[in-house]
């Protein structure tokens, strides 16, 4: 009797599988009003005023939350919840004229009181380091229901820029009781549901003041494993692969009848840091030698399949003062050898302590090889990221060389702080940045350009390349933001074509 029972069991198991497999899920299924996006890093909570990490503003800024001003795809500051703003001649006072048709998703109207509340809240409630960007604010006051006046302690262009980031997000005075799970904003979308460890669903805000978004729902799905992310895209479980981890895997998506590859710019400079306070990099000639010794084009081709932008200083194309190729060092190993000889640094051993991230590991190997050719012995030591790398390299600056992507936009200040792990101490650079921050927006660009040129000539570090903003999307999607310029990945303008 048993042999007859076994096939029955197997068969029923097989039937279950087949029935389950039968229901739905084809590769190209999608409805025209829904979008599923695959991303890597997941938000720890939904409150970026108490929890750090890029994933929260990525999901919420520009979608759920909006600021008085916002940043456009070219990196320019544009009106947001303020339809316009006036800057006083001395740069210390800003008057924001608010839109009067804006509502929060809790039904309350957005007024000057909310704007004042939100700006003050950063200084009182926020615990994160980024809240310091509001330290320059002396006062924020309501002029009338639609007008807000902000007075700064000193003129600052950076302050206005930071108002486009998460610290500038506008909160409802009656909507901050449960921000970790239930954010309340004015944006084109609101949070519909949040399945921790798996997905965050945004739905269209039916009371939105601006243009009606084409999508009813946007599901952000989070994948810890880039292989699983690629598979989900191939299988059609997601419509957009929001961040390609390894450009060499792009060949999987070469089927043009299904996929489009979006290759824009980001603000993540991959910096080859040299500890300016230690031998041999105390000597500017050695730092310059390193810059001449590296064939950046070859490095980009080998490690990133040629995707990315070659840069020569701490800048990205969306910065208004971007100087492009002019800050770069040409590949010149002979000159590098000569400089090393002058500095008496030939044959020096160097400890390169890098984070165990794929881009850093592959770049480190190329750098090691190229520096060996000019006579520098590099020993690579990968450290677990983030914990160990932060503790050893970032906090203690116990390293000679390292490689990491500095992802924050407009982060030129990191070279102005002598305690930052580059240990680059150049008062002229710091002064130039200060001048740029205080001057008129027109003068600022010229000052920044001068500062960044100095940084490059001084070889405070070497800039290997700028990370591309690489995405793979269903071929019939339109309106995805090409460049990563601010902190949010915005979906208001995304739509399906022809359906």
């Amino acid at each position, binding site marked *: *009797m*048993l*042999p007859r029972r*076994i096939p029955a*069991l*197997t068969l029923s*198991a097989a039937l279950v*599988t087949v029935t*389950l*497999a*039968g*229901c739905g*899920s*084809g*590769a190209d299924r999608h409805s025209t009003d829904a979008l599923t996006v695959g991303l890597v890093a997941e938000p*720890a*909570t939904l409150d970026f005023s*108490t*929890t*750090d*990490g890029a994933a929260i503003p990525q999901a919420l800024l520009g979608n759920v939350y909006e600021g008085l001003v916002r940043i456009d795809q070219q990196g320019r500051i544009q009106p947001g919840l303020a339809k316009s703003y006036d800057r006083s001649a001395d740069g210390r006072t800003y008057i924001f004229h608010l839109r009067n048709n804006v509502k929060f998703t809790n039904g309350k109207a957005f007024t000057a009181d909310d704007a004042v509340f939100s700006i003050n809240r950063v200084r009182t409630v926020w615990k*994160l*380091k*980024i809240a310091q960007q509001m330290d320059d604010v002396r006062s924020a006051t309501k002029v009338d229901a639609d007008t807000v006046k902000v007075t700064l302690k000193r003129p600052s262009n950076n302050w206005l820029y930071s108002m486009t980031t998460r610290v500038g997000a506008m909160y409802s005075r009656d909507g901050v009781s449960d921000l*970790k799970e239930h954010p309340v904003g004015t944006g084109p979308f609101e949070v519909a549901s949040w*399945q*921790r*460890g*798996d*997905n965050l669903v945004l739905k269209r805000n039916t009371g939105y003041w601006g243009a009606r978004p084409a999508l009813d729902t946007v599901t952000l*799905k*989070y*994948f*810890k*494993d880039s*292989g*699983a992310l690629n*598979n*989900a895209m*191939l*299988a*059609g*479980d997601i419509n957009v692969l929001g961040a390609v981890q390894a450009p060499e895997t792009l060949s999987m998506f070469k089927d043009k009848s299904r996929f489009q590859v979006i290759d824009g710019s980001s603000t993540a400079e991959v910096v080859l840091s040299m500890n300016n306070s230690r031998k041999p990099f105390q000597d500017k000639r050695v730092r310059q030698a390193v810059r001449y010794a590296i064939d950046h084009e070859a490095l980009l081709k080998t490690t990133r399949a040629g995707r990315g932008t070659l840069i020569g200083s701490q800048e990205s194309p969306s910065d208004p003062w971007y100087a492009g190729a002019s800050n770069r060092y040409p590949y010149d190993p002979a000159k590098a050898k000569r400089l090393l000889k002058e500095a008496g640094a030939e044959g020096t051993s160097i400890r390169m302590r890098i984070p165990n991230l794929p881009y850093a590991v592959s770049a480190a190997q190329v750098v090691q090889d190229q520096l060996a050719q000019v006579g520098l012995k590099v020993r690579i030591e990968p450290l*677990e990221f*983030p*914990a*160990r790398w*932060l*503790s*050893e390299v*970032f*906090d203690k600056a116990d390293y000679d060389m390292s490689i*990491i992507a*500095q992802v*924050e936009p407009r982060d030129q200040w990191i070279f102005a702080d002598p*305690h930052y792990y580059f240990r680059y101490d150049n008062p002229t650079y710091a002064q130039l940045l200060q001048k740029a921050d205080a001057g008129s927006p027109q003068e600022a660009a010229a000052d920044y350009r001068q500062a960044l040129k100095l940084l490059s000539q001084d070889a405070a570090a070497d800039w290997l390349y700028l990370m591309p903003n690489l995405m793979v999307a269903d071929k019939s999607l339109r309106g995805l933001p090409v460049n990563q310029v601010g902190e949010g990945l915005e979906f208001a303008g995304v739509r399906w074509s022809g359906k």
Partner: protein
Amino acid sequence: MNHVVRRTATLLVSVVVASFVVFAFLAVLPGNAAEVALGTNATPAAVARLSREFGTDRPLLVQYADWAQGLLHGDFGTSYVTHEAIGPRIADRFAVTAWLVAGGMLVALLLALPAGVLAAAWHRTGRGALLSGLSQVGIAVPAFLAGILLVYTFAVRAGALPAGGYTPLTEDAQDWARHLVLPWVSLGLVQGAVLTRYVRSALLSVQRQDFMRTARAKGVRRWAALCRHGLPNAAIPVVTVLGLQLSNLLVGAIVVEHVFVIPGLGDLLLRGVQDRDLLLVQGVVVVLVVAVLVLNLVTDLLYRVLDPRLRSR
């Protein structure tokens, strides 16, 4: 009864020892939660302030006592990263992993019992050798590799099942099952293959016993004898292996969760380690340790149910 009490006492002592070991190991892990929480823009003063807030600047023994005391009251503490209670989060994730492990075990049993019986019945025939060979291959394939191959075949190529993700059972039962089929199979295949070998060898050794010969002599057919008298007697070694395998499955589930993007305990554990959210890691590990110990206890008690001879002892 005495036996049960003794075993439970051993279990409790093990849990206490394990909690201490877990705490000690994590305490020596380089890097700290405050640094990670503050990221690449932190100042040393900010790190020190946050450490004080977290309480990670206190002596280790004080921290341990504080944590252990909380555990006794069922309080797992508050996460450094999200500032939320850890207990409910672990409970959520545990439910997911439990479904994964239970389904994987079921698949393993569904595979191993028939295959093991057949392999034993077909001992020294071509078909038997084929089955043994297949189970050997199954043992050699790690669960994560099986997972990747299954995803490629059924999700990427055929588009029949999702490549990963999870839907709670309470939300949509069908979708829940669709997401779990491939993880269940990839966990179950390997464990099923291992179990097949044990069922087969246990049955083979039982077959040589006197009572089997007696049964056959009384005219019971070979298959019927195997099932009616063979299987119950082969159960003890099989249950032993099953108990061990459940622990293996729990570990295997962590890897499989990663491949299939399932928000279970493994995922929570990896995140916790990365963020140096030590209270969270300690909580998860303690839960895993207790789960394994309880499974062992249950296995141990099952022997006495299965084998009347042990009860008198």
